[in-house]
């Protein structure tokens, strides 16, 4: 009882402090001052960022898999080299984001365990299969394209390490997008079979790409608080519209048809009108019922578990070396 009272007293004394801190924090955010790792921040802000940044890192790492699916079957050596470099970039983005998230007081191992045990999410787009070579083009063009649209906004995120990571990553993503579009272009101008593959890829990736921006603003659980904290700088719907407006002319240039019969230019509003996302499908895939959900996680799990002995060996060797280094100078002194 006595203890409880004491704790309560502490809490009561601390309460005004936290309010003051939170107010000062919001003033900083409103003034566009970057929040840095050692600055005070509300717990919920920290948690929200850890969730978002680790999810982003996981997406990079899982995203290597659908593209890796065509690495050994790329149709020319040049394409193989480009794809290999792209996959390497994505892994690099993952590493970079994990270490940015670590500034918030979580370790990469903890985050990775959350991915492997299914408690952390990654972008649901990577649960779709890559069935023909044009899918690699469509991923670069649409998936990296959608990612850039999101990430350009994140370059102005209030959390310094995240914002800086985004600036660096965006440069590489726009490179990926151009390379993906180039694959589509060559195929769209190619043989009848290649055009069919390109159209098929667009048919399968268009809607999932739009889903990457998340639920409509009205239904988005995290949007308003994230906007207030300037973790998010534009809403899901704004970004999605921006992506559509930029991408439709690119599809037209390829001579491909976007699989949306309600798609039409709205001259009055200067934007495209478009149909509706199948949110049942979205939820279904998020909840584990995409064609590749199990494969993606299983691949990463198998690699991790199968590599346990390698990591142990590296650790054991490092320890042995350290011991030898520690004992060597002593011997010299004698």
């Amino acid at each position, binding site marked *: 009882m006595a203890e409880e009272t004491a704790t309560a007293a502490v809490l009561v004394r601390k309460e005004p402090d936290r309010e003051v801190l939170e107010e000062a924090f919001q003033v900083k955010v409103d003034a566009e001052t970057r929040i840095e790792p050692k600055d005070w921040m509300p717990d919920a802000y920290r948690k929200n960022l850890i969730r978002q940044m680790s999810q982003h890192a996981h997406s990079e790492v899982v995203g290597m898999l659908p593209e890796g699916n065509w690495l050994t079957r790329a149709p020319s050596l040049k394409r193989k080299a480009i794809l290999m470099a792209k996959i390497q970039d994505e892994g690099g983005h993952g590493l970079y984001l994990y270490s940015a998230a670590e500034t918030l007081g979580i370790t990469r191992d903890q985050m990775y365990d959350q991915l492997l045990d299914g408690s952390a999410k990654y972008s649901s787009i990577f649960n779709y299969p890559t069935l023909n070579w044009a899918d690699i083009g469509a991923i670069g063009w649409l998936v990296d394209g959608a990612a850039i649209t999101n990430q350009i906004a994140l370059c102005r995120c209030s959390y310094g390490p995240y914002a800086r990571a985004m600036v660096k990553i965006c440069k590489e993503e726009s490179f990926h997008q151009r390379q993906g579009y180039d694959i589509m272009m060559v*195929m769209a101008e190619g043989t009848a079979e290649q055009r069919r593959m390109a159209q098929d890829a667009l048919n399968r990736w268009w809607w999932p790409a739009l889903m990457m921006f998340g639920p409509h603003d009205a239904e988005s659980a995290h949007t308003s608080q994230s906007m207030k904290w300037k973790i998010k700088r534009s809403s899901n719907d704004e970004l999605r519209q921006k992506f559509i407006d930029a991408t439709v002319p690119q599809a037209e240039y390829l001579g491909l048809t976007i699989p949306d019969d309600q798609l039409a230019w709205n001259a009055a509003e200067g934007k495209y009108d478009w149909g509706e996302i199948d949110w049942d499908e979205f939820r279904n895939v998020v909840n584990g019922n995409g064609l590749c959900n199990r494969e993606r996680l299983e691949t990463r799990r198998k690699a991790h578990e199968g590599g346990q002995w390698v990591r142990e060996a590296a650790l054991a*060797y490092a320890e042995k070396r350290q011991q030898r280094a520690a004992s060597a100078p002593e011997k010299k002194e004698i």
Partner: protein
Amino acid sequence: MNRPETDPHFEYLLRLGDSSLILGQRLAEWCGKAPILEEELALMNIGLDLIGQARLLLSHAGQVEGRGRDEDRLAFFRDVQEWRNLLLVEQENGDFAKTMARQFLFDTFQGLQYRELAASADSTLAEIAVKSLKEAEYHQRHSRNWMLRMGDGTEESHTRLQKALDELWGYVPELFEMDEVDQAMIAAGIGIDTNALRAEWDSRVREVLSEATLTVPDVGWAVSGSRKGQHTEHLGYLLAEMQFLPRAYPDARW
């Protein structure tokens, strides 16, 4: 039975390019499977270097041949018996120990090879060798480090790595074989005497194995034949996968 006349210069470049390409393709198979993310990126990076070398070497080979075959024609439209890569590099990845052992044996060889080829009378080949030597040296540092970590790591890693070396050792003598193509290229100042590199390779490899507490295998078998198009069965599957698209749609450009 006589093989059709082939230009030894073309044949020589093919051997170099094919080994780089097949090993690069093997490393690509590691995507999504490596024991740690940093290592996955390293394997992609090394594979990318090797594929880059292959592109230069095969393009050059195609030009020397003068029959209009470019790097992709050579990579995607030759069947098993037209391939000239070393048997060592077509061996399956196995576990990480086997992949790294294969890599270490090859990297050490390739570094020496490029060092000598940097003085080739074929100036294009010499340029490729100079550029690739830096890559091969970096690859060798990487695979050497893993030999030490695994050899002198845990009991399990030591056992796995020793087993991998034992399984691969019989493919080593082929690295240093010489035939009439090599002799013709040495005479022309284009090629090198790989036999003369054996002692240096041996001492480098033995030094690392000993530091890694590994035993130099004594396996009592050795196979070769890649120069005559005789390969292990693994190569056919690798090619089936790699060549599928261009073969399925031969009219397409990608």
